[in-house]
């Protein structure tokens, strides 16, 4: 497990600092970071909203088909990313089911930044739902009843009781969703169009450098992705720790 990591670190440090810097700050690399980060941001914002809605509906209401809806939440995890990629691209192509509805409105999704965001959103969809759901389930009805007898309105209960309770979990879900989006590859490369400087993500640039047998450049760019993953891992761990502590305080 550590050996592959070591190999990457060795290869990356065999480059001089100046050479390393030139590779990772080239315009093409910089643009790929921008495309990747923007895509991940779009995906996370969408999933924050969608995830909250789904968690709320699945926990608070009983209706026929709820179990099915609940099971569907795992679909993006189970479906191979390449399959998701070709399906989303065909859906949003100008003649696709969604594309032909959107193109008269002047909205282009396939082969644009928006498409990259949507592909990332699909593959990281379960995170917010699955982190918020258990927390929302644990909130006792008595707390809300007590607040209501004390004269609190729905908005006050929502804002002062429910939101603070789920916020740490919500934050953790968003962080996971963002992290997954940064590393996403399979679903994105089909819908992205992959134009250098425009819609090329960092993971793809790594692969392109490999196919050119430019191993130093591939290694340098891969190391940037790796460092980003480490940072996100540290961040999610910090958020989860915070949410644990917060949970203990409110109990």
């Amino acid at each position: 497990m550590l050996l592959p990591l070591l190999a990457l670190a060795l290869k990356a440090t065999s480059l001089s600092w100046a050479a390393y810097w030139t590779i990772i700050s080239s315009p093409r690399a910089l643009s790929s970071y921008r495309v990747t980060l923007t895509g991940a941001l779009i995906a996370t914002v969408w999933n924050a909203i969608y995830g909250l809605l789904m968690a709320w509906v699945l926990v608070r209401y009983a209706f026929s088909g709820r179990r099915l809806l609940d099971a569907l939440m795992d679909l993006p995890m189970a479906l191979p990313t390449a399959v998701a990629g070709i399906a989303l691209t065909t859906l949003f192509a100008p003649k696709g089911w969604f594309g032909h509805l959107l193109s008269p409105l002047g909205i282009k999704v396939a082969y644009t930044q928006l498409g990259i965001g949507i592909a990332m959103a699909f593959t990281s969809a379960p995170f917010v739902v699955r982190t918020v759901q258990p927390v929302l389930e644990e909130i006792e009805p008595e707390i809300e009843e007590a607040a209501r007898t004390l004269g609190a309105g729905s908005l006050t209960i929502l804002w002062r009781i429910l939101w603070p309770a789920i916020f740490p979990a919500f934050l953790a879900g968003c962080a996971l969703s963002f992290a997954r989006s940064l590393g996403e590859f399979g679903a994105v490369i089909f819908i992205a169009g992959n134009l250098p400087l425009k819609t090329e993500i960092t993971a793809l640039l790594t692969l392109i450098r490999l196919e050119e047998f430019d191993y130093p450049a591939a290694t340098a760019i891969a190391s940037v992705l790796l460092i980003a993953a480490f940072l996100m891992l540290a961040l999610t761990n910090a958020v989860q720790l915070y949410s644990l502590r917060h949970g203990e305080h409110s109990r």
Partner: protein
Amino acid sequence: MRPDMPGRPARVGDGPVARRVLIGLACLLTLAFLVAPIALIFTQALAAGPEGYLRAITDGDTLHAIVLTLTTAAIVVLINMLFGLAAAWALSRFRGPALLLVVIELPYSISPIVGGVMYLLLYGNQGLFGPWLAAHDIRLMFTPAAIILVTLFITSPFVARELLPLMQAQGIDEEEAALSLGAGFWRTMTDVTLPNVKWALLYGAILCTARSIGEFGGVSVVSGNVRGQTNTLPLQIELLYNDYNATGAFAAATTLTLLALATIGAKMLLERRRTA
């Protein structure tokens, strides 16, 4: 406004309007966001009629890719079950450094592409072990062995992270009891430890299977993409799609989609069992 019912005050969002709007919105968004892609895969695959579908799915290279993918998954899942069991057992019985936990979770958070690059730098021609492997005439990169190795790396956390919390919660009392009653190590393992964690183990194995069947990024770095030789099913789908063979690509995709749906079904059944 809903009139107050005696005894039970309404919870937030229990009003009939809020309820209907929110459930409707949730169903609509899920339909467009998650169900439409699945429906599209099947309509596209069957667009050329049932014969066209059959022809596409029985194409030699596609069949080979299916076999390679399934064999890879079988080997990977088996090894990961053993590894996950050993790792979770060791981590819950002995106090290891916290770093070990992070290392086990690492493949979960790094991009599969980066995972592939790591293995290339380790075992490739110019890699750390490259010269040694070449001297012994072992070629690893761009062979099915490389595909298995990378898939193993990427899916390694799945079993361990399902087992670890459970094994930690169960503690060692039962194992100690068995040992003190004279059961040997293996007897304790098969009669006490394993039955206690079987559902979690199965659950981890299911997640691991789904992930290894669909693995794309890491495998595409190390496979070499030789049709009919080292092309896994997701890679074969990419090739067909880029050849503008939509029917072929979507037909191959239906097999993976059915496997994904089966995974979800199995997960649902297991969850019902675990809570029952």
